[in-house]
């Protein structure tokens, strides 16, 4: 079950700078915390977010243990052509989460 919130404008004009937001549900456990009875909680974080615009990578971010739970990322993008924005989060243990959104450029 994907729990990701993607905000991409549905339509844009060619060359317009649009605001993109992406948030996904993740505990981002740092690995530095103790659980009950002093047992260390193993590290479990997302390490990278990439965003592809019609297959071409246009944005990427590396995440580290200081990033809060449910990481929220916002960036801008020049709308050049209609198509799909695909987001992929990868994390510890090879986990991967994807989400996508369509944009119509006129």
């Amino acid at each position, binding site marked *: 079950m994907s*729990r*990701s*919130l993607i905000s991409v404008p549905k339509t844009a004009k060619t060359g317009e700078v649009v605001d993109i937001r992406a*948030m996904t*549900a993740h505990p981002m456990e740092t690995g530095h915390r103790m659980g009950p009875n002093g047992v260390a909680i193993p590290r479990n974080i997302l390490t990278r977010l990439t965003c592809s615009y019609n297959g071409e990578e246009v944005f990427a971010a590396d995440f580290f243990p200081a990033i809060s*739970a449910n990481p*929220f990322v916002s960036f801008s993008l020049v709308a050049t052509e209609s198509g799909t924005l695909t987001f992929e989060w990868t994390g510890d243990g090879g986990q991967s989460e994807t989400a996508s959104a369509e944009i119509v450029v006129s």
Partner: protein
Amino acid sequence: MPRPAAGLLALALLTAPAAAQDIPPAERRSGRDFMAPATQAMQADDTSNPGMLWVLQGEALWQEKTGAAGRSCADCHGAPASLRGVAARYPAFDTASGRPIDLAGRINQCRSVRQRAPALERESDDLLALTTLVAHQSRGLPITPPDDPRLAPARDEGRRIFTTRLGQLDLSCANCHDQNWQGRLAGSAVTQAHPTGYPLYRLEWQGVGSLQRRLRNCMVGVRADPFAPGSAEFIALELYLMQRAAGMALETPAIRP
């Protein structure tokens, strides 16, 4: 030796009137009004409000067939929007058990009676997600506690708990939230304790939590032994708090620091 600030607070509490003075309706404020503008903006925008992640999860669970009956929430209720206004009326009186029941309890009851599925654990992500989804349908509607005389004894009990001093610090809820809501405690605003946005996303928790979890926090804070999750005491307190907040708009999922 107590620090000056703690001494002043203790002095303020000692000199405060013994009986709880209710906050006049015109002075009632949601916890949202005590937050920084940046946090308010985070709550107002659904694309930046992390509570919406739980609403999304709730929507997926809503469609999921489960239990021995193999039914989903959608099979009986249709779209989640059909439950608009429901959360504003809870806790309500449950004729089956003859006791008041809160929203999370009602969802669990629906699971065990209609879906014949095991009850979800209190504060589990799944139960919080379903409760958040249902409460989200009532966003913007005024809190309207049911006018049911059978709820009156529990509501009075809630008021009694609210005004009774508890724990090693010997403080009642009313000492802070009725008498000193203008003040601050350890740099944080003391709010008026109106449950307008539950279940809500608390930045401190890095997740969504219920009103009962928040009440538990306060009880641990005054070094009292917290009531059990889903207990009659918590539901009574919840009933009284919703009565106090009657007419205020629901904000679920709210954000709090």
